[in-house]
């Protein structure tokens, strides 16, 4: 009945609201912050996020198998040429918008009263962040995409340094410099594409690209824009900023960073590759090499690094790199099935990873530490959080339940025939990150593992977050997210996916979306359990087994750690290397 009621609304009217409402609320909050009583920003922000989520969902339903187009300022295209800025919302973009709104609502509940003394400044920044993300999802104009990209970045920079501890400031500086460079690259790429296509509308640029043939200007534009989005999406070798920033941001902010911001970079790249660059044979040649290659490396490297961490948020940050790599592989398949898998994966991963960061926040608040070793056995009093963490770890590893698995399953299905190595990398990524989380859960909540004794590698600063809210208030949003991930039926996704992907890619990607094989998920879960058990019980294993493993591991491990030096100069050099790599692949494609 609700659906029939909604269908009677004029579809397009709602499109600007998910962006405009948070902007209006945040500006009004800023103007009146000093007059408002204590909890008002919390309440307003939560309601706003829920409204955004609801509106996006309605638009997604209305879009159906097509898309809802909206032209700002009433500037409809004339003679097929776009004059103003348009939003184009297909079902996939709309549902991802709804997911982002839900994630924010959960985060606002999680952070209830956490930022009380700041005159709503935290909420202002978060609402701006929300509006920018929705704009990023909905827009069909390349420069408008850049504007939202930058608004997102600027809000994120300020939020990262919120604690004003030494490490968070330096993390924020690294984040700011690298992501500013991403913005400049993107703008340069936009300039090149504009010079060739003479418009900024996605559809117009797509025509220009298809018309240009093999053209260094188009290739250069793609290289710059894709590099910018891959920096946002933390792909190797652009990934360095992520661990520095996500590990030090306040937990509620980390939830958004890992749950939505990083995957939005990949989402934007998927949209642009399909909608704008599909007409260029050169770029279509290069995408599988680049995206599958770099994605597979990210998946394995991120997972490995996650396994090496004992700072819980840093561990989760590296696991985000790994999963972003898995999503990137989905772009590289250039198939409807791969893209469907990627889109579902974005939502599933966001829910699970957001929940995990909330658990890290709970530990910071109630146990005053984020160090896995120092927390050993300290989680016994908060068993519900332990159960949630174990469930989230299993879901992350690929337990065949829920949304994340549906996405992974579709991805696996698109990889089995053509890209066996990439399939292996996705399984390894899931196993490694799942193992890291399960190991931490076992150590913190069950007191497993050896007693460390040495404190050499302990996190440098005594970190803690304010514990002024009851446990259930922090745990409830986390459980809601995990429950949503587990509850959404795969059949619904499978029914919606083919039409949604066709609309998402403007008919560039078509084809069957079928269930993938089940064994990769089980392989990944088994790997995760095995690795976690090995890490927790290796002091009980005979030296004969442990010794060689440790010996073969140590040199590459140290090299990896040295690469993540935390020095901004290194990151800039790696950025140039990545750019050169992409240019090289494009040149030989």
């Amino acid at each position, binding site marked *: 009945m609700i659906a029939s009621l909604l269908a009677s609304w004029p579809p397009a009217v709602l499109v600007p609201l998910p962006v405009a409402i948070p902007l209006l609320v945040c500006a009004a909050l800023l103007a009146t912050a000093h007059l408002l009583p204590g909890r008002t920003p919390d309440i307003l922000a939560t309601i706003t996020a829920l409204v955004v989520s609801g509106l996006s969902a309605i638009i997604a339903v209305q879009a159906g198998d097509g898309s809802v187009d909206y032209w700002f300022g009433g500037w409809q295209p004339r003679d097929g040429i776009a004059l103003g800025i348009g939003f184009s919302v297909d079902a996939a973009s709309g549902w991802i918008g709804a997911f982002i709104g839900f994630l924010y609502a959960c985060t606002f509940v999680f952070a209830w009263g956490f930022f009380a003394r700041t005159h709503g400044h935290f909420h202002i920044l978060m609402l701006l962040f929300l509006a920018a993300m929705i704009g990023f999802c909905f827009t069909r104009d390349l420069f408008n995409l850049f504007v939202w990209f930058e608004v997102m970045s600027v809000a994120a920079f300020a939020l990262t340094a919120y604690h004003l501890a030494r490490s968070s400031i330096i993390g924020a500086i690294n984040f*700011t410099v690298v992501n500013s460079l991403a913005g400049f690259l993107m703008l340069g790429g936009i300039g090149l594409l504009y010079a060739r296509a003479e418009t900024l509308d996605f559809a117009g640029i797509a025509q220009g690209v298809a018309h240009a043939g093999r053209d260094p200007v188009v290739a250069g534009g793609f290289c710059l824009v894709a590099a910018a989005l891959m920096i946002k999406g933390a792909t190797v070798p652009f990934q360095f900023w992520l661990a520095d920033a996500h590990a*030090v941001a306040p937990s509620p902010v980390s939830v958004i960073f890992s749950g939505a911001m990083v995957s939005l970079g990949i989402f934007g790249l998927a949209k642009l590759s399909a909608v704008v660059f599909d007409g260029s044979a050169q770029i279509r040649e290069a995408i599988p090499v680049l995206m599958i290659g770099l994605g597979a490396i990210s998946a394995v490297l991120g997972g490995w690094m996650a396994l090496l961490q004992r*700072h819980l948020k840093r561990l989760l940050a590296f696991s985000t790199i790994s999963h972003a790599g898995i999503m990137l592989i989905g772009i590289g398949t250039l198939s409807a099935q791969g893209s469907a898998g990627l889109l579902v994966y974005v939502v599933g991963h966001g829910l699970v990873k957001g929940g995990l960061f909330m658990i890290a926040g709970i530990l910071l608040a109630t146990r005053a530490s984020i160090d896995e070793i120092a927390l050993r056995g300290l989680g016994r009093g908060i068993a519900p959080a332990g159960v949630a963490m174990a469930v989230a770890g299993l879901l992350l590893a690929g337990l065949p339940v829920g949304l994340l698995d549906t996405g992974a399953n579709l991805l696996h299905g698109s990889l089995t025939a053509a890209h066996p190595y990439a399939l292996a990398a996705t399984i390894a990524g899931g196993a490694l990150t799942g193992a890291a989380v399960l190991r931490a859960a076992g150590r913190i909540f069950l007191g497993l593992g050896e007693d460390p004794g040495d404190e050499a590698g302990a996190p440098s*600063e005594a970190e803690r977050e304010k514990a002024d809210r009851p446990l259930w208030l922090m745990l409830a949003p986390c459980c809601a997210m995990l429950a949503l991930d587990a509850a959404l039926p795969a059949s619904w996704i499978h029914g919606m996916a083919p039409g949604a992907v066709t609309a998402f890619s403007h008919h560039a990607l078509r084809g069957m979306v079928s269930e993938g094989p089940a064994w990769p998920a089980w392989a990944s879960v088994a790997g995760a359990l095995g690795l976690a058990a090995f890490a927790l019980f290796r002091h009980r294993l005979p030296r004969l087994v442990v010794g060689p493993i440790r010996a073969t591991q140590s040199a590459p491990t140290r090299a990896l750690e040295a690469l993540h030096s935390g020095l901004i100069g290194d990151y800039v050099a790696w950025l140039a290397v990545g750019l050169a790599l992409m240019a090289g692949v494009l040149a030989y494609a």
Partner: protein
Amino acid sequence: MTWLPYAVAAWLFAIGLYGLASSRNLIHLVGCLSVCQSATYVLLLGLGYRYGSIAPIFYDHPPGTPAVDPVMQALVLTDIVVGATLSALLLVLTVQAYKRSGTLDPEHLKPMSRGGDKAAPATSAKHPAR
């Protein structure tokens, strides 16, 4: 010489990257970032220029007079705002970093000790005394 503006843009970006990689002072580093950004101004405005055209303001000239591309100018305007915001934020972070650690040298500023790396020297994790 038709390539000169674009070459200048590329040069500015490259020299800015060099500055970022080699900088030993965070304030200097922020300046280098703004040089990287000026590359985008030059590129965009270079692409929007046409010989013999007026500025896109039809006050002294009637509409219809050939004018340069106003879209690029609008984009660069936004870009300049981006530049100002980034500089301001980074300078704030720089000032705060200095107050926390007493140095502006990025080589001495590391975000946090390596979590799992037992081999890392523990001293790097300590706060420099203020």
